[in-house]
């Protein structure tokens, strides 16, 4: 019995510690990338062919790339680009998807019918293909890539929100709110949004990882960030020809991508626990 109790207590303290560690790590990544411009001594865009493909040294902690630019500086600026645009794309998709899903699920009628047609259309194609076609049509560039990602992703959120709302809207408490004369907007905001937000945030944080990968892989094939701006995927691509001599040039952006995606996924798990009212309650108690 004691062992079970002790084990539970250890597990519990791990559960409590995990979010703190996670948030700390994530904010380190964000701060490092966010403040890159202010404290770095090297210009990430300045080429210096005399210094190309240098190894690690006190001047260049992670060495230099094939044009003599400081890798560390570029890694941080690249993170700024990758994370910034991922969050921008994700945020826009959420702002579009949640209200649309709420409307379609709650009001039904023509809004819903139009929405279902559109989303079925999008479902017929894989995300990546649509994004490639769109950025091919709109032209290469990070702005168009973000737009393509938003167009592909918002439907998923709207579908998720719609399906949850469809289930909830028939319940008695919504009926009571309606007979109480609450306007539809208030019902959606006050009664339906709390049901939706947890699921949406979990999906969003899992998607954040996917979007980071998507932006990186599009930059890798040259459809995303354009040179000379650094981006983790583009850096991987730049380093490809020198993989034999300087493998770390590919390793560093790769590790950065892996860590960030992992952190985003862990954030998703944490948010799921946080928004589950019932589970939250359970984890606070130690069985006696």
């Amino acid at each position: 019995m004691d062992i079970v109790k002790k084990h539970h207590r250890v597990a519990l303290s791990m559960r409590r510690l995990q979010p703190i560690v996670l948030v700390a790590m994530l904010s380190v990544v964000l701060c490092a990338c966010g403040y890159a411009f202010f404290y770095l001594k090297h210009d990430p865009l300045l080429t210096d062919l005399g210094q190309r493909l240098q190894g690690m040294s006190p001047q260049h902690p992670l060495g230099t790339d094939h044009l003599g630019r400081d890798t560390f500086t570029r890694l941080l600026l690249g993170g700024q680009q990758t994370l910034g645009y991922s969050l921008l794309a994700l945020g826009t998709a959420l702002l579009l998807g949640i209200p649309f899903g709420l409307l379609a699920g709650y009001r039904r009628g023509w809004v819903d019918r139009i929405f279902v047609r559109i989303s079925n259309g999008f479902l017929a194609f894989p995300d990546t293909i649509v994004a490639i076609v769109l950025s091919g049509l709109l032209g290469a560039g990070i702005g168009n890539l973000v737009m393509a990602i938003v167009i592909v992703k918002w439907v998923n959120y709207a579908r998720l929100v719609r399906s949850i709302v469809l289930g909830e809207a028939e319940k008695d408490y919504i009926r009571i709110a309606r007979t109480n004369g609450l306007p539809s907007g208030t019902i959606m905001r006050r009664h339906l949004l709390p049901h939706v937000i947890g699921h949406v945030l979990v999906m969003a944080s899992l998607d954040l990882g996917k979007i980071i990968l998507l932006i990186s892989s599009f930059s890798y094939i040259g459809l995303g960030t354009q040179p000379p701006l650094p981006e983790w995927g583009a850096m991987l691509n730049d380093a490809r020809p020198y993989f034999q001599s300087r493998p770390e040039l590919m390793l560093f952006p790769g590790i950065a991508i892996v860590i960030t995606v992992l952190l985003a996924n862990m954030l998703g798990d944490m948010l799921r626990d946080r928004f589950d009212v019932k589970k939250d309650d359970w984890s606070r108690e130690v069985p006696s």
Partner: protein
Amino acid sequence: MSVLQVEHLYKTYHSYPSHIGWRNERKAKSVEGARFGWLGRWFKQSSEQTGVTALDDISFQLQQGECLGLVGESGSGKSTLARCLLGIESADRGRIVLAGEELGGQSQSEHQLRQQRRHIQIVFQNPTAALNPKLTIRQSLLDPYREYRHQLDLNYFRADREDRFARQLMEAVELPTALLDRYPHQLSGGQRQRVTIARAISIEPKLVVLDEPTASLDVISQAAILQLLAQLKQELGLSYLFISHDLAAVCQLSDRIMVMKEGQIVDRCLRHELFEQERHAYTQELVSIF
């Protein structure tokens, strides 16, 4: 003074699928003609014939401070009547006059409709479904109040501060105020039903529709809830429309009793007359089973 007056209410459910809701109900009617088009005038004809009559010429009055019991077996149209009163569904024909104003009149604006809805509140059978599981008890309780805050004229409760108001409500239904910040799943069934009752009386409506409020509770909680309802009726001067198939509960609380069968009111009587010999045959049958 009569709080509620229902005159010649008719309602038929057609065989086409329609979602419950006053918006869709109206739409379904207009769709009926259009959907079949030139192809099947016959079908339209037949669909009208296969409708189920849920309410058939219902008329009654409900006085201020009175509790009117409505009994009948499942499917007799009791809950349909409640839904029509609440405006969740609309009747085909007939008039509902609530607190002196006709409900759902043609000239009514959205604003007037909302004004009127504050006079009527409902307590459903299942308190678990009637409370939003993601909101705390406090939030659920204050929901109607926040909507009508500026139009309220409260006699019994004082609503100057939200916190004090919520506490008063909890005290009125004899719940500890410590439960205010809990979630519904942390409360027992009886406690949850008390919360829904507190919410229903919070804006001091003229009429509370009780749609089988004790059906999902155990015997002891049932008795306690009935006692509480009787007490609140006394203190706040509420009127109840008490819908139930539990004759014992209805007898305990109601002043008058109506018996419904297949959409019609087949019998009406005062409480103490229910067991007399000259009652309608169906009433006698119900009483004998009970």
